[in-house]
């Protein structure tokens, strides 16, 4: 369920880095808690993001939630399909429904994030 090659945050985002290029999304646990997702707001390509700062928001039928960037860097891509098909976040949050691509400015930040095993322990304890 939670890929071993991803890193995870306490706010339920994931990051998948290959070199200094990373994809970022929200976890399956997050989409399950949010329920039916109806809007996804993402930053502009080229904007700078900072670890722990808001990257955008996802809105479900019941509430709107901020997405916090797991890493710092520059946004190099956004998942345009989510504008018209936000429900994909409910079905494939770790794959097709990635949110943004980021060129990492501080790859060492990844070391401070949770592994898949850590994250599963974390969400198990949160319940």
């Amino acid at each position, binding site marked *: 369920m939670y890929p071993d090659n991803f890193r995870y945050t306490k706010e339920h985002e994931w990051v998948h880095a290959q070199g200094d290029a990373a994809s970022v999304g929200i976890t399956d646990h997050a989409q399950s808690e949010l329920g039916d997702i109806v809007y996804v707001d993402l930053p502009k390509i080229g904007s700078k993001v900072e670890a722990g700062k808001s990257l955008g928001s996802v809105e479900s*039928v019941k509430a709107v939630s901020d997405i916090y960037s797991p890493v710092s860097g520059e946004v190099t891509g956004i998942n345009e399909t989510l504008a018209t098909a936000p429900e994909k976040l409910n079905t494939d949050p770790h794959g097709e429904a990635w949110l943004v691509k980021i060129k990492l400015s501080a790859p060492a930040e990844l070391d401070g994030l949770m592994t898949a095993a850590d994250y599963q322990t974390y969400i198990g304890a949160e319940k």
Partner: protein
Amino acid sequence: MVDFGGWDMPVQYTGIIDEHCAVRNAVGLFDVSHMGEIELRGPEAAKLADFATTNAIAKLQTGQAHYSGLLYDHGGFVDDILVHKVADDHYFLCVNASNQDKDFEHIRSLNRFDATVENTGSRYTQLAVQGPKAKATLQKLTGVDLSAIKYYWFTDGEAAGTAARIAHTGYTGEDGFEIYVPPAEAERIWKLVMDAGSEFGIKPCGLGARNTLRLEAKMALYGHEIDASISPFEADLAWIVKLDKGDFNGRAALLKQKEAGIRRKLVGFEMRGRGIGRDGYEVFLDGAAAGWVTSGSPSPTLNKNIGLCYLPVEHAVPGKAIHIMIRNQPVEAVTVETPFYKRAK
């Protein structure tokens, strides 16, 4: 699960939209055991009920129920409730979970009658079976002829061999029943209702769908459309206020308000721009802050983003262009007729 007034309540089971549509198209089952019950008994139980509530108790026949308000002296809501007339000397009130202790103390403080007030919430579990297939589902569990129970009437009978108060009431805008059973039997009856409804595609429904369903039907939710600062006239609930029935708590304040006129009123809106106007968001009219959103959500039935808001009374009419401040951005919306959804009879 979320904590709701001390109760662990499921917000959703299979998803709010899925559950919502099950109720509109077939049948859904809600565990609403958190709802409170208060019972008034004694020779003057009717007098107490009439003095404590806004609707006319004299109009209720035995076996009939109505929606009503409990008000403070100043005319604001203590709670909104359902009053069931069990007998001339026995009234059964269904009240909001988080308000039940407050309601109980409030009614007791008004009791200068030959009547007793009892907080009996722990004796009942309420299950709501709602949707066009609710009757066919519940009928399998009871010998009571459900077709004979008119809307907003109830029968004390049995369900699955257990004493049950079966009320033709609901909080979804759909046809359906609310049943009150002993807590020890609730889990068994829940399972039996789920089995009985399986041929219709019954879904267990959580608080999330309960909220979207009641919003489409423009039914008030305490803490949102109504609270201590809001009067029934402001909340567009004048129909539950019977000023000519005799004295009741809050009447003097309401009379004054009626003479002076209200300044703000609840009105429905639909989003025109992209976004959802949610509870607490500011509403702007001609560029100036003019009111606030009480509830807002996507409407799964209408496929629009809808909501309710308070606006100055002269603007609380359909067809007004408004803006709702969504995360510091004004987003276009328009006031509309309510209810947003009305079931075909």
